[in-house]
């Protein structure tokens, strides 16, 4: 799976511990960009079993390198 999320800065995202995020599902098709509120563990590099996570800053610019996320819980 592939997602993106918006962050003010990369420092805002603590790696290796649970963090609550609004993810946009980037799966192609009619429901692309639908939002999921999840708890997960993010990493600045690819993680085995993890999903791809692109980061966008609040201006909308996309960080060039993808991160990864392991979703641990659906929040709502």
């Amino acid at each position, binding site marked *: 799976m592939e997602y993106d999320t918006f962050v003010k800065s990369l420092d805002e995202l603590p790696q290796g511990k649970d963090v609550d995020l609004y993810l946009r599902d980037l799966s192609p*098709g*009619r*429901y692309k*960009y*639908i*939002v999921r509120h999840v708890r997960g563990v993010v990493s600045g590099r690819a993680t085995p079993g993890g999903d791809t996570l692109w980061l*966008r800053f*609040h*201006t909308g610019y*996309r960080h060039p390198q993808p991160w990864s996320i392991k979703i641990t819980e659906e929040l709502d």
Partner: protein
Amino acid sequence: MGFRDNRDFIAALQHTGDAKVIKKEVDWDLEAGAITRRVCETGGPAPLFEKVRDYPPGYRIFGAPLASYRRLAVAMDLKPDSSVQAIQEEYERRIEHPVKPKVVKDGPCKENVVKGKDVDLLQFPVPMVHDGDGGRYIGTWHLTINKDPDSDWTNWGMYRLMVHNRNQMAGFFAPHQHQGLIYFRKYQPKNRPMPFAVAIGADPLSSLTAGTAFKKGENEADFAGALARQPIEVVKCETNDLLAPAYSEIVLEGEVIPGTNIPEGPFGEYPGYRFPERRSSPIFQVNAVTYRNDPIMTLSCVGFPVDDSHVSVSIGAAVAFKRSLKQRGVPVTQVNWPAEGVEHLMVVGIEKRDDATIDLIEQMVLGSRTPICVTAIVDADVDVFNLKEVLHAFLTKCHPLKGVRRHESFWTLSPYLSHEEWLNNKGGRLILDCTWPSSWKKETTIPPRASFADMYPQEIKDLVLKNWKEYGF
């Protein structure tokens, strides 16, 4: 008479060459937005996208409905090549006579009704308008309907709306806008959900009035009727008591839920930048959707001028301010809110300058709820609709020290504001006095303008004009 629905309007635009059917399949994900943006920047015809990727035949998108004065003229049943001044003057004449909406029992927007768990906002081809937007925006050219619970005031406004999931949306809430005013004063403090309806693809003049500045307590529906010269037919919603235009393509019904927060934005906005930064919004819970067969989404790809918001505000806000000036006794000639000024520039022409007049205009600008940032006041010999003349007046008549007045104000969508100013609702307004000092006399002090119109005797001008072709031009 005005168009009862958007479909007749589109057909009329096709007839005048101001709309074009796009038969090639386009992607709702950026492609439709990019085409519409380019249409805005090149002055092209409004695109009607007939085939949209991932969506069944008949589900269409109509872009840039009023992104040109020609299309606005057609919407008002005027000649397409009417001047801005002519459109403005006709608009002013018509809104003098508000026409109450007519409540009907049924309408095309009820051809399909979906409620509760079956609601799916993405059954419609909601576009990803600009790359980097916070989500897919279902509300870019629409009208949001809210009612003041303590009066007869029903507000129609145009506030951007982003799809969050299948049945929830996030919206941009500004406390000084009417929707924010009603919600933050009347509903949120009592922890009461605020009913809303969103009409997408209503007739063009209903959408126009929703995107235009009317005063608190004024019902935009009455002015839409005035502009259309017939009552707007409205029909009761399925799940609340709000009334929506019966010929809308799609109507979303629901409640704004206090105490909830979901992210909204950023979005490519009318000043021509993608901002403000991502913010929190209460949830717009959608409880029902009604729509016409083969619904047409409307898309305003706001951004660098000229787009639909610039055109609609340029007429509506200018007329509103001009009327207020006249009511206060200001010797106003014309007011222009040029579309190129991204709603931030107003040009006021006055018959005769004196300090009291400038002071009065200044007070009225500072009291205005509009996003105006810069007001240029010019003499009667400057055509306020000719930006070349306005710029010339600013650069030659506005004294850099005595002619500029700066004031604090509330924030607008102004990219130059700092983060702290945003948080504290702080902005600024600038008054540029581009008139000659009232003590200066025409014969002795005011320098004549060195132009063809002003520098030559009439007989020489007549001679030159008569022989223009003979000179070889």
